[in-house]
């Protein structure tokens, strides 16, 4: 596979792959499997999908000229060949700078209610403009420089939006293209649709656990009309509690945001500093949002490792281990987090279910990831803690009772 900078596949190669995945279709129609009325509600009024807008957005998405040093495009960290993310712990931008956040996939983001893991952006059109200016991502000095880089597309902008090149329309065009990346046709969806044999017996058992003992469905609702598997809300599940002192960090964040309350500053702090760990708090300043991130969608989750906002969990087995012990104790832990007492068999069934949520067009990558993650999990399960998972040890007792039992 021909490669580009920062570990991404070559842009032309990606375009070719994309053409294979997503044959030419009428973009003004709702994607297959989605109700046209529901779909229409997700399209902004000022950015109706047209062929020209999508084509322009596609060009921009793969265009490294949008970055300061010409090495980074959207597709660098949202790579067609890597689940439309970069499958790295955290992403790498210009000058090989790495940030604090794991790149989420752009697949199906059209259906999200907020963008970025802390929900600091309301729409794809708005979101698409932020990385271009972020100093550690694409690093353009200002909007004018980004517009300058796109003057080659003057005609395409005119045709798409009826006006000259401008920054808002760069965001709109990229957003329009990203809205075409709807990949919801998973084996599991076929199972829900009535094909009992579309998924394995293990995956079916995992689905029962998902709705019951494993408690997943509380925050990850999945059904035919709502395929994403996210409640679009923000929860602290303890991932960031592993390496942060929330209180002092929150104080520093408020000070920094008090000095410069711009959304650009927020974008920089969230990506480049350890304040990233504060999550939703950076947006709302509400204490109860400390360490909370938007519930990840589950569609295509098998091909988007590593997991969590900081990419700290390498495999879906690790993800299950994390939940099985009730997350990491911290004062802001979501009330729904409980030790789950899942056995190894049940964890295996849960993982089988999660791998059945990948769109059939991405099945090859899904199989590759399953094998890869399984091998990695057999080697190491860093977050496995059966004592806590089965309540032989209660985290709060360590703290309050000096390890002694609270009972009798």
């Amino acid at each position: 596979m021909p490669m580009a900078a920062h570990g991404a596949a070559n842009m032309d190669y990606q375009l070719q792959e994309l053409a294979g995945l997503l044959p030419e279709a009428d973009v003004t129609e709702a994607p297959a499997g989605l109700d046209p009325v529901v779909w229409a509600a997700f399209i902004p009024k000022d950015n109706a999908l047209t062929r020209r807008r999508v084509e322009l957005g596609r060009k921009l998405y793969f265009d490294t000229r949008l970055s300061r040093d010409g090495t980074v495009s959207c597709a660098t960290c949202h790579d067609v060949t890597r689940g439309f993310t970069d499958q790295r712990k955290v992403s790498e931008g210009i000058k090989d700078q790495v940030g604090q956040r794991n790149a989420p996939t752009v697949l199906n983001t059209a259906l999200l209610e907020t963008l970025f893991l802390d929900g600091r952006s309301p729409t794809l059109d708005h979101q698409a403009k932020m990385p271009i200016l972020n100093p550690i991502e694409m690093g353009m000095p200002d909007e004018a420089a980004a517009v300058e880089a796109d003057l080659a597309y003057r005609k395409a902008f005119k045709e798409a939006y009826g006006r000259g090149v401008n920054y808002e329309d760069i965001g709109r065009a990229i957003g329009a293209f990203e809205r075409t990346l709807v990949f919801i046709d998973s084996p599991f969806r076929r199972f829900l649709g009535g094909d009992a044999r579309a998924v394995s017996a293990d995956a079916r058992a995992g689905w029962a656990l998902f709705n019951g003992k494993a408690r997943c469905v509380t925050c990850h609702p999945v059904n035919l009309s709502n395929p994403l598997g996210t409640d679009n809300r923000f929860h602290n599940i303890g991932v960031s509690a592993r390496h942060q002192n929330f209180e002092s960090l929150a104080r520093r964040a408020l000070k920094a945001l008090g000095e410069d309350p711009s959304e650009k500053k927020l974008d920089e702090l969230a990506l480049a500093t350890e304040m990233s760990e504060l999550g939703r708090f950076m947006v709302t300043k509400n204490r109860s949002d400390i360490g909370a991130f938007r519930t990840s969608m589950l569609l295509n989750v098998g091909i988007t490792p590593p997991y969590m906002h900081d990419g700290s969990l390498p495999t879906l087995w690790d993800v299950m281990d994390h939940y099985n012990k009730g997350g990491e104790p911290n004062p802001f832990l979501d009330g729904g987090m409980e030790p789950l007492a899942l056995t190894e068999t049940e964890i295996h069934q849960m993982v089988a279910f999660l791998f059945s949520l990948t769109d059939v067009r991405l099945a090859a990558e899904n199989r590759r990831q399953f094998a890869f993650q399984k091998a990695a999990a057999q080697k190491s399960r860093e977050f496995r803690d059966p004592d806590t998972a089965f309540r032989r040890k209660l985290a709060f007792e360590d703290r309050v009772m000096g390890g002694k039992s609270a009972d009798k």
Partner: protein
Amino acid sequence: MKNGPRSDETTCAGRGRHPAGSHRRLSRRSFMQASAAALAAAASFTPVSVARGAGPSGKDPAFRFAYISDSHLYAKDLNDRFARALLRAVDDVNHLDPQPDFVFYGGDLAQLGQDHELELGARILENVKAPLKMMVGEHDWYLDMGKKWRELFGEPTYSWDHKGVHFVVLMSVVERDFWTQRNLSPMERMQTVAGLDNGMQSSFMVGAEQREWLTKDLEKLPKNAPLIVFSHSPLYKLYKNWNFWTDDAEEVQAILKRFDRVVVIHGHTHQVLTNRIGNIHFHGLLSTAWPWPYAPQGMPELTVQMSRPDPFNPNDGCGDGEVHVHADGLVDKVYNLWNRNPLIVAKGYTESLGKKDVPPKPNRPGY
């Protein structure tokens, strides 16, 4: 059907909205304005306390105390979530900066008054940095009639003075003997009382003995003395079927009547609750364990109700809070809700009988 319950979808359709959320109607510009406004509003907000030195009433409070209430601890093999919730509340008050003058515990530390429940609560509360003041609730009491609680925390009825304010703690959950004649075991008695709507039990009351004590305790105070009274049940009659009720409320109110203004702070109801009867201003406390729904009748008009808690989030509607005490003894009541924006019921709100400083309507739509 016109006045019947309507789903979110129906409501949204009627207003031409997408049920997924109102942010869709925000243009980028208005979103930026909204976020700028939110940031500006938040600039003076510190995370560790709702440190609004000057409350909405505009005057600096004389001092502040924090509260935790209604933790309902169980044996750990039945439930350890409530223990973790109490621990969270302890963390909250310990991180208030500056520290509150004291932390008040509003009663119902245990679920069934058992030794190990109360001991667990005492061990967790040992972690509170500020001085701790305890009140008893019916869940702490009716297994051994207060033996263990007294052993751990002392007498349930007492008073003290702090920075010019007289504080009184009452044991307002006295019940008439319904158990002897029925030959109930201590645990049966406890479980009867613990059932919110178990009609076999009697109503709560303060009782003649404590009313006499209260009269004496307040005897020497001038009528303009700032006075704050704590009771586990509300010192008024809200809804008898759930014992949101004190049977001799009128008699206790009569003892308080000669004062210019009195604040009564109560636990038991697990919700945002505000009332005013004459010179008495009432505030409820949040529970760390669960929120009760509002009573179907008898709700005080002054209460701005919190919307129905999210059944998928066990923290929603729970929390702890602060009380900012002003020189005249009236208070700004801060509800620190764990899954919602903090809510302040300001002194000016009860003072103006709901005309000024109206608390914001709930930030979550009804279901």
